[in-house]
Structure formats: structure tokens, C-alpha cells
């Protein structure tokens, strides 16, 4: 230990973006010396060192320069300034099966690819059986690669790179290949590499993976390194950056969707808006007009504040059937918090602003929390909670106070509905969003307090609590 394996020294990379590319001789002559271009610095003065045996993750948004950095480390691109020093054999997995020749058999490609990664025939000979076994190709090894399924293709690519005995392995978001079992095998192999003291550098969008595998992580933003440190810290930094950019909260997408919806269906939206407005002002006489309005389009709410333009999810029918409307939903962090995210286990208050056109004596508020893939994590309503709510005409405020949110990293959607005896009166999806960041190293969705330790046989004999769960 103690020796550096990869040294990235003040690496900068400039790309020239030509407005028009002149590649023919005529064009070159005509535009000699004054080809219009813009400079794009994909990397600016990035420096860090990777110790031997370390696993370092590189985090960053799209276009932050992650892949450019990896390419510079692999030597596919030369940095414009600065240099990268690599000690030992480096196997780069920028794209699986990149060096494969379609016309050759799997066997021939293993040797070709191996030599491209800098390994001799003897090295590859020794590893050959392992590679074939790892790739699960069996008798297909002598078939031409062009007849392989895409799964076989990437499996072979991965198998070559991880079986040819590199000192440094560089992986660019290629760990998610093949079926679940193969992925597990890849992860196991990566972990074996770690145990053997090899150096691994990898780029990933998945903070969980970085937390799980890395000893350190580097965070890039707009070509600059904004931090390097423990994976937990780096992930936090990375997601704070995302928050600043407003990406994870999905506000931008929601706004975009809203724009599209109101743009594509102006007549419909206007019609239903009118109906709502009229219904609000004068519930009685608007019946005829409201009935004329066609079905309102589905428009997701834009972030926390719901304005009058957003049409509700429910069908606009008789205004009598939907007297209560949600006006504003916000997620309130615990008082005194300056962060924009929750820590696991912290309380959260969801405040709902509503407006009713008349007095309703039985109102049910519904709450749903879903994760980024739409899985319902928690749902409840005031009926289940045994709460009886009656409301007066006019505006009002209601709160769900969650004592603790035992969730781990992620952005979560809060969906809210309000129901009367005559059906759903209003429904917002997502009504608001909140973000949880985990300073620890546990991964998953739910924060479960854990204690672990060895148990002596005596203690085991003495204990009588609990039966076996399954």
C-alpha cells in the first residue's frame, strides 16, 4: 500500500465545437484558418490520486466530464493540458465488446481483445477457460460474434476485461449488463478484485453502487472537481448539486409537462378552467356550462404551489360533486432546518391548503408517498386515522404530521387527495416532493436501525425471546 496507482495531474480537456465541420480539401482551403468554432472545456484542472488497491467512484451529472475523464485515464483521449500517470496494466471497459470483430469467432475475439488490452497470448491462454466459463458461452465460443445475442456479446466483453488480470480496472457504467444473476456475478468479481488489491475506477449514476463499492469518490460538475472524499460525503455533495440544479425534484419535468399539456390542448384546458372558475364563484347557475366542458386533461401538479390553472385529475362534473379543491401543498422540514433535504428518521409535515365552495360535513384527506419508480411506500387517509373532518366554505389549511420518515436516499413524491361523500373532489399527483439524504453507508429504501454482533452460545441458551420468522 501507499503507492499511487493512478495520478491525475491538472488534467484539462478542450473540445472544439465546429459550427460547420470542414473535412474536405476544398472547404479547408476556402475556410483556411478561420473555421468558426467554440471551445468547450470538458475538464478543467482535475487532479486526484488513486492509491493502489483503492476503489474510487466518479460521480457527476450528464455532461459533467465523467466519461471524458475516464477516456483520458484510459488513453483514448489525450488531455489538452496536464497528464495522467498510470502504474500497471490498465483494462478499460468504456464500452463492452468495443474491440470485437464481427466476422471472427468468440475464441479469436478473446485473443484479439486481450492483446488490445495489452496482454500477451500466453496471458490469455492461461485465462481462456475462465473467460469462456465466466461469459457462459459454452459451445458458442467458436461461432462468429456477429451471430451472438446482445447479451452474449456484452457478457464476453465483460468476461475478457475482468479475467485478463489487470492492475487497474476502469469501468464506465457498464456494470448493469445481463440478467440479474450475471450482474451479481459481475459485482462479485469486482469485489474479488478489491480483495486482491487491484485498483478500480468507475463511473456510475447510481449513488447506491458508489456507496456500496467505493472507498472514496470524486464528484465532478461542469468539468471541475468539486469534491473528493468518503462515498457518503461525495454522494451527499453530488445530490446537493443536483438539488441546486433542481433536477431530482423533478420540478422542471413537471413544469415542462404542464407547458405541453396547456399548449397542446388550449381549448380543453380553457374550457374546464372556465367551468371551475364559474363553479367557484357561483355553484348553482354554472351547471349547464360545466356539463358542456369536455373531459379535462391529466396535468400533474407543478411542485409545491398549485395554482388555479392546474386542472384536477378527477373528471369535472357537476360542481356539487366536487366542492373542495386543493390550492397548495407543501412539505415542511423540521423547524430550524437550513437544509433542503431530510435526514433519515426526521419528522415531516405536509401542509395542505384547500378551498371549499360550500360547507361539507364529511371530508377525507388521502396521503400517498411514492418513490422515484412509483412504488407506493406509504398510504393513509383521515378515515383510516379515525379523524372526522367537516369544513366550512372558503379557504382552510390541513396538516399531516409524520413523526418520522424512516427512508434512505432518494426523492419521494407526495400525492394528495380530498374526498367527500360524493366521491373524489380533488387529487394532486405529485402534490409535492421531498428529498432524503443518508449520511451513513446503508443502501436501500427504508432506514432500519441495526445493531449487530457475535453471540456466545451461553447467551444463546439463556435467551428465550422470539421465534424463527420463517
Amino acid at each position, binding site marked *: 500500500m501507499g503507492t499511487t496507482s493512478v495520478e491525475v495531474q491538472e488534467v484539462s480537456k478542450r473540445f472544439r465545437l465546429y459550427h460547420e465541420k470542414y473535412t474536405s480539401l476544398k472547404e479547408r482551403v476556402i475556410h483556411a484558418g478561420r473555421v468558426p468554432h467554440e471551445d468547450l472545456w470538458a475538464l478543467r484542472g482535475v487532479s486526484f490520486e488513486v492509491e493502489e488497491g483503492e476503489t474510487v467512484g466518479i460521480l457527476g451529472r450528464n455532461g459533467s466530464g465523467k466519461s471524458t475523464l475516464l477516456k483520458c485515464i484510459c488513453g483514448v483521449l489525450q488531455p489538452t493540458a496536464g497528464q495522467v500517470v498510470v502504474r*500497471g496494466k490498465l483494462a478499460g471497459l468504456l464500452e463492452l465488446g468495443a474491440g470485437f470483430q464481427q466476422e471472427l469467432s468468440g475464441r*479469436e475475439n478473446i485473443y484479439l481483445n486481450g492483446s*488490445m488490452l495489452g496482454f500477451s497470448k500466453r496471458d490469455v491462454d492461461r485465462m481462456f477457460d475462465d473467460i469462456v466459463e465466466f461469459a457462459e458461452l459454452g459451445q458458442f465460443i467458436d461461432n462468429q460474434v456477429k451471430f451472438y445475442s446482445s447479451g452474449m456479446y456484452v457478457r464476453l466483453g465483460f468476461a475478457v476485461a475482468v479475467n485478463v*488480470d489487470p492492475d487497474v480496472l476502469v469501468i464506465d457504467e457498464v456494470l448493469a449488463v445481463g440478467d440479474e444473476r450475471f450482474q451479481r456475478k459481475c459485482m462479485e468479481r469486482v469485489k474479488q478484485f478489491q480483495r486482491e488489491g487491484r485498483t478500480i475506477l468507475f463511473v456510475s449514476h447510481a449513488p447506491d453502487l458508489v456507496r456500496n463499492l467505493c472507498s472514496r469518490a470524486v464528484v465532478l460538475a461542469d468539468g471541475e472537481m468539486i469534491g473528493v472524499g468518503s462515498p457518503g460525503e461525495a454522494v451527499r455533495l453530488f445530490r446537493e448539486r443536483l438539488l441546486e440544479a433542481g433536477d431530482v425534484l423533478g420540478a422542471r419535468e413537471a413544469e415542462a409537462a404542464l407547458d405541453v399539456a396547456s399548449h397542446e390542448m388550449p381549448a380543453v384546458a380553457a374550457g374546464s378552467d372556465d367551468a371551475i372558475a364559474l363553479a367557484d364563484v357561483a355553484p348553482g347557475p354554472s351547471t349547464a356550462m360545466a356539463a358542456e366542458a369536455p373531459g379535462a386533461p391529466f396535468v400533474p401538479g407543478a411542485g409545491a404551489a398549485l395554482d388555479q390553472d392546474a386542472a384536477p385529475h378527477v373528471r369535472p362534473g357537476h360542481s356539487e360533486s366536487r366542492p373542495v379543491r386543493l390550492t397548495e401543498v407543501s412539505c415542511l422540514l423540521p423547524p430550524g432546518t437550513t437544509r433542503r433535504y431530510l435526514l433519515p428518521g426526521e419528522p415531516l409535515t405536509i401542509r395542505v391548503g384547500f378551498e371549499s365552495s360550500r360547507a361539507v360535513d364529511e371530508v377525507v384527506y388521502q396521503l400517498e408517498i411514492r418513490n422515484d419508480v412509483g412504488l407506493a411506500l406509504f398510504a393513509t387517509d383521515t378515515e383510516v386515522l379515525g379523524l372526522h373532518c367537516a369544513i366550512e366554505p372558503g379557504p382552510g389549511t390541513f396538516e399531516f404530521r409524520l413523526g418520522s420518515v424512516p427512508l434512505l436516499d432518494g426523492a419521494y413524491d407526495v400525492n394528495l387527495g380530498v374526498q367527500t361523500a360524493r366521491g373524489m373532489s380533488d387529487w394532486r399527483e405529485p402534490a409535492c416532493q421531498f428529498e432524503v439524504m443518508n449520511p451513513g453507508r446503508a443502501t436501500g429504501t427504508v432506514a432500519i436501525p441495526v445493531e449487530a454482533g457475535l453471540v456466545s452460545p451461553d447467551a444463546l441458551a439463556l435467551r428465550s425471546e422470539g421465534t424463527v420468522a420463517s
Partner: protein
Amino acid sequence: MLGAKGSIATRPKITRVVSADTNVRARLQEIWRSHELLVYLVRTEIKVKYKNSVLGLIWSMVAPSMTLAVYAVVFGAFLRNGMPDFVIYLFSGILLWNFFSTGILTATGVVVNNAGLVKKVSFPREILALAAIGSAGVFFFFQSCVMVIFLAVLQWAPAWSLLYLVLVAMVPTLVLACGLGILLAAVNVYMRDTQHLVTVLVGSAWFWACPIVYTFQTVQTLLSAHGLTWLYFANPMSILVMTFQRTLYGRPTVTDTQTHGPLAVLPHWPITTYIWGDAAVLGFGLVLLYVAMVVFGRLAGNFAEEL
């Protein structure tokens, strides 16, 4: 299986530096380290070229034989140049020329044609150009076999004592082809015209500028009358081709089949003149190769983004 190799930490490691300024020496070292890759690439190139074709490598002999037959008939039979076994003379020139021209023609397009590889895998890119020359070398070998058959069938004896000249001419040709191939491969990435330009030049002008189909003796008088002999030999391939002919055709003067008088085919230079000529070309070729390496090294850094 991996544990058997000793600790990862303690085994010897090569240090590699990726930066904008790489010197020729470092690049040469890297190329040397990848010599096995060169062999694989040559093999791949040939395998891929003749995959799924029934005759396979035989095609590499059929094509030049066809050219040979055409020229032999046109110049030997129609135009009656009077040379006995003209086909041998022709073949000696074409053999060397084909190696050179096939080499640089393939090399010119090789980086562009392997864009996928260049963008994703790191290895010294010069290897691609060298592999193109290498595969031309393989075809040269097969064509040489055909040449041997020709010599045997026609019972034509080459100048046995001068056979080493084949090597003396081959080495400069190889160096020249490598230099030019590497240079053109790099330039072609930035100017795709290069490919077309090279095809036109090498395919016609340069071919006819060499004494392959005709003899040097036929143009010599004209050249010296205008004092242009130096220009003719400014084409480095001229002297190399003539060295090949001097060995394989073997006779500077033959008996004309028409007039039955003496017919001068090659200049009566002492052998050392040929050797010095070839040595001069070798010197030029080495300089060119160095320049090509420098230029390639400069341009290679941006290949991945230009392609």
C-alpha cells in the same frame, strides 16, 4: 487462479503517461509492447477480407495475375517490346509495387475505418497503419510464391548471386510504406480527401512513374536529353523496382526476340550503385518515418473526437 500469480501489489508494473506531449521514443516503445496486437490485427484483416469466400487467399494471387496477363499481352504481344519472357520482368516490378501500393492504400483509410475501435479502446494507433502494411506483406508473400512458380515454369534463372538484393530493396520499401502509411492515415482523419487523392495518385501516376511496364532504358535517352534523370530518381520507388528487376529478371541486356540483336533492359551499373541508391531511399524513408511519427503523435490525440 489469479492468486497463483503472487501479490498484485508487489509485481512489477509499467508506468504509462497520458499527456498532450508524447515523444517519438515513448510511442515506439508502446508500439513495440503491442507487437502481438499487430500480429492479431494482420491476421484479422486477412481473415475478415476473405471470410465466406470460396477461393479465399487465392484471390490475392488472382488479381495481380490478371493485371500481369493484360500487360503481358498488350506490351509483349501487341506492342512487341521484344523482351524474352517479358512476364518475368513485369512480375518482378509489379511484385514490389503491389506491396507498396496496397500497403499505403489500406493504411490511409485504416484509422477512419476503425473509428469504433479508436474511440473506445486504447492502444497505440500507429499499430493500425502498421497492420495494413503487414497484411500487404502477407499478400506479397503469396504473390512471391506465384513468382517462384513462374520462374520454374518458364525456366528462367534469376541472378542467384544477387538474391540478397531482394532484401536490400525490401527494407527501404517497408520503411517507406510505413512512413507514408502512418502519415496518410493520420492526415486522412482530418481531411477525408486524402483517401481519394491517394487512390488516384498511387493507382495511376505513381505506378507509371516507375519502370515497371516499360524499361528504364526506353526513357533514359529522353530524360538525359532534358537533364531530368534526377527527377526520375526523385521517385524513390524507381530505384527499388529496378533493384528487384536486376535480381529477378537478372540480365541487364537480353537478345531481342524481334531483331535478335542486343536489347538493353537495365542500366549496366555496378551492383554497388543499386545498393547505394537503395541505401539513399532507406535514409529518406527513415526521415519520413520519423516525421510521420511526430505528425501522427500530434494528431492522434484528437482522433477520438474527430471521428
